[in-house]
């Protein structure tokens, strides 16, 4: 087997094994796997409505995945995507409802506000790492909590004790009648286009610019970067800031697209943390992130249909989804297995 065939086979086999083990879990707990998986399938691809909502679910995952992947590629571990996303969400919602502007200015302004807010939140971690050698993992974890509670406090203040902000103005909304009509009233919005543009942007920065070359060099070997006259500190801060920008835009998708407001949260959204898995599944490449986010988003949204259509309890559904992701993530084991298999064949 050539490497190319193996590269193609690995994800397919991983998903199949994940589905089989998930089926076993359903069988053991007394549910019909065929029914369960057909409910999952219709939940994702059933009709234009579910497809629209699946794409809507994928959108913030792409941006969260990009944020984590970008940091990874530059040698940083951004665990704070969750917090940066929450801050971006709030900033976008505020610009969305507090000012009135024509659409062509309002949407970009709200997006820029979200990107800047997320970028600032990540900048704090980058700055502390560059100047005082504080590890970014610790800072970003803590900044997740500060982001969550600061956002909650601000929303409470803005609304005199309410639990969500006013709805954003139509001029800031990413939703459109056109998208709603072709997807049978789903909440699909134009955010997916922004997410895909950001995929292209990440690829362009890393693979096509001198800055990307510097960022990667600093990520791999700070001593060599220093030797080559690059500013290590400047690049660390910049890498973190760009990563936070992607995360902030992820929040904007929720504010300007899905929810049209920002609300008080009892806990984390989970999108930022899932972004870590999305980035790893996608091997930290821009295109890989689309794949990882599609898998995560589809399973996440499609599985909502399993309790209704197949009567499988939510807990079991979560286990099945986790198993599928687990096997996709353990593609390495399958790769090694395939390589051994093809070696044996050659030997005979």
């Amino acid at each position: 087997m050539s490497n190319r065939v193996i590269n193609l086979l690995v994800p397919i086999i991983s998903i199949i094994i994940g589905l089989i083990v998930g089926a076993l879990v359903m069988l053991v707990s007394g549910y019909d796997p065929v029914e369960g998986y057909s409910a999952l399938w219709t939940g994702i691809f059933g009709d234009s409505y579910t497809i629209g909502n699946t794409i809507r679910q994928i959108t913030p995952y792409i941006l969260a995945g990009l944020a984590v992947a970008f940091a990874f590629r530059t040698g940083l571990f951004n665990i704070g995507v969750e917090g940066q996303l929450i801050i971006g969400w709030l900033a976008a919602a505020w610009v969305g409802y507090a000012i009135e502007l024509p659409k062509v200015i309002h949407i970009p302004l709200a997006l820029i506000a979200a990107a800047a807010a997320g970028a600032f939140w990540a900048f704090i971690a980058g700055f502390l790492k560059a100047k005082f050698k504080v590890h970014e993992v610790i800072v970003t974890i803590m900044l997740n909590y500060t982001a969550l509670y600061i956002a909650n406090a601000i929303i409470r203040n803005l609304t005199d004790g309410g639990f969500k902000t006013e709805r954003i103005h139509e001029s800031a909304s990413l939703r459109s009648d056109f998208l709603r009509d072709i997807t049978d009233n789903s909440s699909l919005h134009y955010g997916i286009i922004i997410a895909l543009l950001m995929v292209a942007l990440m690829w362009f920065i890393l693979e096509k610019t001198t800055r990307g070359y510097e960022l990667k060099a600093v990520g791999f070997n700070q001593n060599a970067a220093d030797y080559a006259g690059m500013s290590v500190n400047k690049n660390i801060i910049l890498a973190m800031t760009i990563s936070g920008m992607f995360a902030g835009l992820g929040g904007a998708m929720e504010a300007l697209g899905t929810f049209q407001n920002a609300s008080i949260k009892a806990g984390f959204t989970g999108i930022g943390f899932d972004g870590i898995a999305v980035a790893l599944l996608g091997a930290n490449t821009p295109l890989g992130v689309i794949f990882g986010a599609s898998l995560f988003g589809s399973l996440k949204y499609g599985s909502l249909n399993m309790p209704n259509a197949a009567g499988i309890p939510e807990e079991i559904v979560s286990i099945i989804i986790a198993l599928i992701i687990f096997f996709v993530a353990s593609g390495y084991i399958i790769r090694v297995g395939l390589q051994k298999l093809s070696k044996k064949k050659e030997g005979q």
Partner: protein
Amino acid sequence: MEYVIEMLGIRKEFGSFVANNNITLQLKKGEIHALLGENGAGKSTLMNVLFGLYQPEGGEIRVRGKAVKIANPNIANDLGIGMVHQHFMLVENFTVTENIILGSEPTKMGTVNIKDAAKKVQALSEKYGLDVDPYAKIEDITVGMQQRVEILKTLYRGAEILIFDEPSASLTPQEITELIQIMRRLIEEGKSIILITHKLKEIMEVSDRVTIIRKGEGIGTVVTAETNPDHLAELMVGRQVEFKTEKTAANPTEEVLHIENLVVTDYRNIDKVKGLNLSIRKGEIVGIAGIDGNGQSELIEAITGLRRVKSGSVKLNGKDVTNMKPRHITEEGVGHIPQDRHKHGLVLDFPIGHNIALQTYYQSPIAKGIVMNYKKVSEKAQQIIKEYDVRTGNGEMTPARALSGGNQQKAIIGREIDRNPDLLIAALPTRGLDVGAIEFIHSRLIEQRDKGKAVLLVSFELDEVMNVSDRIAVIYDGQIVDELDPKATSEQELGLLMAGQSKKNKGGND
């Protein structure tokens, strides 16, 4: 004659690449058998086959006359084969004993029995003359002592056959002398040794027989006493090797580098360069001779802007560059071959081609504004790979990590010389390289000199300093203590100066 190990006609392939072809190595009991070859000739592959890390595609391995299949390192251990790795496999914050027992910890009622183990380690170290403190932490002991721990690790596991992989690469001359004594002691105690090296001097001094491999092919085995370094080098490289690089007399002109009263501190803020003065002119190679740790690293880092200067000045072509940023100094015309090519010289995870752009990636024609033209990077890389004979597996896109040390170094030298710097700093440029690569690098340095460039060479190898330099500056305790003409000095005189003996005590000179 009894052989403890016989590797007969070994063949090892990696895909279409043949790393070992028809290599035969027979180790007699109680001998030191050297395995000689250039970097990338396949020495390590062969030993990894013996140690069970790779499975050979052909040939046979016999241990004490019996054919064996060594499927993994545990089997090698059981057969009494132990490997002393070039890069030590030690846990830094564990003690000597803890490291030695790691993986086969003796237990007493469920807890690790450190005391008995430490006693056993002590006994072993006394038996074989390996001076270590069983309770010392690895991070606190010298490199030489760490190596003794590696040796003890194999002995503790009952090794009868020891493989030493480039054991002297990271040792000081003093430690190398000790190592040679240790190897002799091991032989006296009935062990057998395979010594992987490309240092001819050590082979002549310590080995009984030598097996040579070249480009993966077994060339043959010779008795050390019946050969000489020239012959061995020829067998290894496949052609005659010049040990003494030919060069014409130097013709120095204007001053390029001028250092005055330079004081530089190390990372602990202790002065390491203490009021140093040095001047280098166009068209000469100045060699800094000295024992490691006398301020050489700090001096170079200060010149290149990587370390702050505490006081004094560095002038380049008459311009003060003291405490300027590294990039500024590079652009003023300094090329720097760093002493640690993995730490400073290369981004190992980048393809070698991208590494060749490391100093010029932001300049035209490689960069246009913020956009980088990777096609131009490849063109430049291909040119340097060709000019400097950098051997890569897969052209300029081969990861730098996959290149042998010599080829990595050639790429760095190509990158630095190609920028046409006025001052070329070469810090330990041939460390860990084989004779072929050393010869190549020396001739390139001399070529730069002949083109009217200034070259600053820092080396711990006396042969290198004496062969290549036009002028030798001896560094001791952060100062240049004397300047000598390489033609009018001797290793003895240099050695004394490097050890801090002043010239006046030495007596008359003819």
